């Protein structure tokens, strides 16, 4: 009975997502009147500029928001369960720092490396940053996998991941220091995150990558529930711990690396959404928390995207700022509102 209610609630969450999607398509820097907006949606409008804006600028962006919200939340959930640490998030293993390093080298370095950068830039255009980001995050990922076969202890792996992240960040700072101001600015803008850099071709690459991470996560629901009892107990229950650990690392890194490559590092979502879901649904059971995170994460990032557009103005706020500004009070409000109940996790 309780299960049925939960399932209904989860399914019902799809409705607000659709509504938010439409809102995100309608609101933007350029004002489009509502009735005309519906004309555009139904294909009756002949305003080529607005048609282009809605279907080639806003729709890819809205879909990116949904996928990013879902993906980061799932990756964050997996990290929190694997490390049994409520402060873990998708970037805890240094994946986004590695991506940052890749992009920093691509954007800011000079002389020899510039030569290669420009080849990549020439070939891929704006995609050069994507390639550089994937390169950087893959490097960190491979290091993590290599180390995880030597360090069995999960907590140590977490610390090593954090250290890799710090190392990458330090190198990035050095690059920033020696670089021209315009290039530094270009890089800083990347770090602020952007949901609008992805067009339809990029989505064609991003969606399959992230979705395969989702598929893996669904198959990991059962062992992740067992992991709540601790690694030893999980092993005793019948979980193939080593295999599950690798799968979690791989799928979480795949999702995170793919997202960061296209959107830059977007903070806060991966860390907070699983907590919000656990608090709202009152459970840590991954059968509920995983789909809940996907749905709630999509909703949250779409809302942040709408807010960042500042409808009617030419200025657009960086998505990273909005996710933190918006998300942090939400979590605080939920925790305080529920202070009489035991806080999950």
């Amino acid at each position, binding site marked *: 009975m309780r299960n049925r209610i939960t399932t209904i609630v989860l399914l019902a969450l799809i409705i607000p997502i659709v509504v938010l999607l439409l809102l995100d398509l309608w609101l933007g820097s350029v004002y489009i009147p509502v009735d005309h907006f519906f004309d555009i949606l139904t294909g009756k409008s002949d305003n080529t500029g607005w048609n282009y804006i809605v279907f080639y600028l806003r729709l890819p962006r809205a879909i990116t928001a949904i996928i990013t919200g879902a993906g980061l939340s799932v990756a964050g959930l997996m990290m929190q369960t694997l490390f049994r640490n409520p402060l873990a998030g998708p970037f805890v293993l240094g994946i986004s720092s590695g991506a940052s390093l890749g992009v920093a080298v691509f954007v800011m370095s000079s002389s020899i490396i510039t030569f290669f950068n420009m080849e990549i830039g020439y070939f891929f255009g704006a995609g050069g940053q994507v390639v550089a980001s994937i390169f950087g995050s893959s490097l960190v990922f491979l290091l993590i996998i290599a180390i995880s076969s030597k360090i069995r202890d999960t907590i140590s792996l977490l610390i090593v991941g954090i250290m890799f992240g710090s190392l990458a960040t330090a190198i990035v700072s050095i690059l920033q220091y020696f670089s021209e101001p315009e290039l530094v600015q270009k890089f800083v803008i990347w770090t602020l995150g952007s949901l609008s850099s992805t067009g339809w071709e990029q989505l064609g690459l991003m969606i399959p990558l992230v979705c395969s991470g989702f598929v893996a996560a669904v198959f990991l629901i059962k062992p992740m*529930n*067992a992991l709540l*009892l*601790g690694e030893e*107990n999980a092993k005793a*229950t*019948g979980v193939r711990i080593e295999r599950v650990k690798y799968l979690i690392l791989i799928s979480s890194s795949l999702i995170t690396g793919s997202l960061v490559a296209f959107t830059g590092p977007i903070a806060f979502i991966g860390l907070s959404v699983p907590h919000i879901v656990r608090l709202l649904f009152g*459970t840590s059971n991954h059968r509920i928390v995983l789909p809940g995170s996907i749905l709630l994460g999509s909703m949250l990032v779409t809302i942040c995207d709408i807010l960042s557009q500042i409808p009617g103005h030419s200025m657009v706020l960086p998505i990273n700022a909005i996710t933190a500004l918006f998300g942090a009070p939400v979590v605080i409000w939920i925790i305080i509102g529920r202070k009489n109940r035991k806080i*999950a*996790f």
Partner: protein
Amino acid sequence: MFADHHTHLVTENLYLGYYNKEGRLYLLQKDMNESLVEGELVCLIGPNGSGKSTLIRTIAGLQKPVGGKVFIGSREINQLTNTEKSKHLSIVLTDNAVMGNITVSEIVALGRYNYTNWIGTLEKEDRRKISESLKKVGLREFENRKFDTLSDGEKQRVFIAKGLASDAPVMLLDEPTSHLDIPNKAGILSLLRNLAYRSNRAVLVATHELDLALKLADAIWFLLPDKSIFKSTPEELIFSGKLNEVFGNELVSFHANSGTFSMNTEYIGSVSLKGEGKFLEITVRALDRIGVKVNLRSPDDPVKVYVDNDRWIIDWKGKKSESFFLVETCRILRKVVKK
């Protein structure tokens, strides 16, 4: 025919130990050839560091033995996949910290891990086993309670229920009662015996609760400091003198007649005690506790204590003091009595 009990688990030439960082071998037990039979509760005892946990974990396949093999059913345990292993044995560890907000039934449901499908959907049979297991451990009404609202004793029972739900014939427990209070300790151990008898499991419990073990176990495996094992019934163990050999020291000794440990008291002196009523027995014990020898018959001690129904009178070299409280009496006597 009567001896046709099913032997589930056998160890063969098992050597227990571990390698430290430099690669040196620390041997804990050598050449163990044991077997666990269904329908019996075996308690594993031994001094700290003798290898109780190591044995449990090695048998459970959580650790590799330094030498020798463990067979379950008729197959070697390390050849089994994790899934097969957990169909044959279940293990309850000391620390059962659970992260997160899950219900009792969700935890017990994990006992059905090897029987459910890829996403863990529970069939009717699974649900039945879960309810049944909870009933057997006395937690039937707790099914939908959140795990962290339970007391420590109840939490431990949940994990035992999880082990039951897995239908594994062998149950291994590593000091399941260490942080429980006495009624819970007793409760858990007698529950385990019931499960062994009624649900036909082979139960091996590593424990420090010697007194309970001696009263409840069908067999005791005593890990000795010379890296050998002494197996027997509790009664044979008591009268073998081994307990005193291993555990006895200046402070404690094991008394075979009472079947318990008692403190070796150092006496500071003696008093002559006279009296009647129900408090006489109490006073004798109290005096023994504080280290005062009691002479019931000779009236010649310098300190004389007279106990009545509601008061104590202390006669010290002629001076008399009176007290209505045993505590106070003891305090006075500790000051006054000398060898």
